[in-house]
């Protein structure tokens, strides 16, 4: 497990007393309340919570697409005030552009930022190799399965070499067996890149399998209810999911959920 040592680089993502409120037709709504946690450099942190707890709002704040109403959210020490190149995002739906082939889809963030495509091209091919899709570089999204499309999405999120990877329930749209495969794949990819990851999910086993730490959020207004360190040794595999320690951790999280007030 990649442990951030004492006195090392600042936490990749630092969230302090984060508030987000917005106006709706029924009056002001508090989406997030005094949220407070870190994602250390190179760590894999999951945010686990029921629907409507503000997980997606949190992600949009981390992307720079929303501004906080109070508190702060900072990346590598600097507050996030707009989209930052150090952030890559993987959505729930692969959201590949249907009129571009796989390689061009991976290069979308590069072109959007106006960066040099030539250099990025090599990197994109390297990433496709990493997600085992290099043979499909000139294929089109509609020729790929959901799992494959999502892997392209991951490659795309990494193409501009971000320090922080945001993932919004990336496997929710996939069937159960593909999900399990993708979990193992994602761990392999992450361990190869050393990025920090903020992973949103509502699946307890997924969170336990993938993360160094799990942050449990309450229903709206979203608050941190509990943080659980996952001390399972890496690399984790399917057998790990059958281990007693795994069961104990998932049970603990289930109890946290059971104790939560419904939204």
């Amino acid at each position, binding site marked *: 497990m990649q442990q951030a040592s004492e006195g090392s680089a600042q936490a990749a993502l630092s969230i302090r007393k984060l508030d987000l409120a917005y106006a709706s037709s029924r009056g002001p709504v508090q989406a997030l309340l005094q949220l407070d946690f870190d994602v250390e450099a190179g760590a894999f942190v999951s945010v686990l919570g029921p629907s409507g707890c503000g997980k997606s709002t949190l992600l*949009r704040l981390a*992307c*720079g*697409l929303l501004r906080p109403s109070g508190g702060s959210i900072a990346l590598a020490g600097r507050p996030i005030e*707009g*989209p930052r*190149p150090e*952030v890559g*995002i993987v*959505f729930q*739906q692969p*959201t590949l*552009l*249907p*009129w571009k082939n796989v390689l061009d889809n991976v290069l*979308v*963030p590069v*072109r*959007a*930022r*106006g960066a040099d495509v030539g250099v990025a091209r090599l990197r994109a091919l390297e990433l496709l190799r990493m997600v085992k899709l290099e043979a499909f570089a000139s294929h*089109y*999204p*509609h020729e790929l399965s959901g799992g494959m499309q999502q892997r392209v999405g991951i490659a795309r999120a990494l193409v501009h070499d971000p320090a922080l990877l945001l993932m919004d329930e990336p496997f929710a749209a996939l069937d159960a067996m593909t999900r399990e495969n993708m979990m193992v794949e994602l761990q392999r990819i992450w361990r190869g890149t050393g990025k920090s990851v903020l992973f949103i999910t509502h699946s307890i086993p997924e969170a336990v399998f993938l993360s160094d730490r799990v942050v449990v959020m309450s229903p709206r207004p979203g608050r941190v209810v509990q943080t659980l360190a996952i001390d399972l040794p890496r690399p984790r595999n399917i057998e790990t999911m059958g281990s007693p320690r795994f069961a104990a951790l998932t049970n603990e999280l289930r109890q946290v959920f059971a104790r939560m007030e419904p939204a």
Partner: protein
Amino acid sequence: MNDRLKTAAASLSTLAILTLWWWAMTRPGGLDKSVLPSPHDVAGALHAGLITGTLHAHILATGKAAMLGLTIGVSLGVAAGALVVLVPLLEMFVLPVVTAMQSIPKVALAPLVVAYLGFGIASKVFTAAMLTFFPAFLAAVAGLRAVDAAHLDLYRACAASPLHTLWNLRIPAAAPYLFAALQVAVIFSLIGVVVSEFIAATEGLGYVIKARSLELDVSMMFAAILVLCAIGVAAGLAVQLLQRRLVFWRRP
């Protein structure tokens, strides 16, 4: 497959019945050729027009004007639509007005256009452009706005400029809408040119229809109408083919 065959057979039999009825009505002793020409007369007129070539210049005149009018009208419409989408403030000022203008028969301005621009191709092109601008504009706005929200988020998270987003995301996403509007625009441009030719022209298929009507040459009128039909259908098919090639990711 069987269903298709049945439909083909049924359609052919209907057409056969209609043709037979037509032929029967126009036999000697039946309707006069200045009221309803016989299939033979129309065939003769088509032959004179297409093979011998009396209609060639007119076909070219109408076709050229329609193409020009279509190109100008649609280009301006899409450009204006793109502008309105890029500048959200414009949208609430301009869109309702243009939408309301859709209900106004702009052909009514054709005589005015002819009065200004004269008998030549200019008034035909202007009328056609005027008619095609509006559906193109509205389709452009609808299409450019109908982008997947997740795609928009992706581009915004990459700090893409609005222009880059327009070119790389909105326009391809709008393609299906634009092609649908193009189908409509093709017909409108033909309408515009033909009406302009009715009012005042020296050549063109509309001119032929009008001029021949004054001489009770109904056969040639039919021939010209059929040729117009063919142009419309051909143009529609061309758009469909283009759509299938360019919008390859959507199975229509």
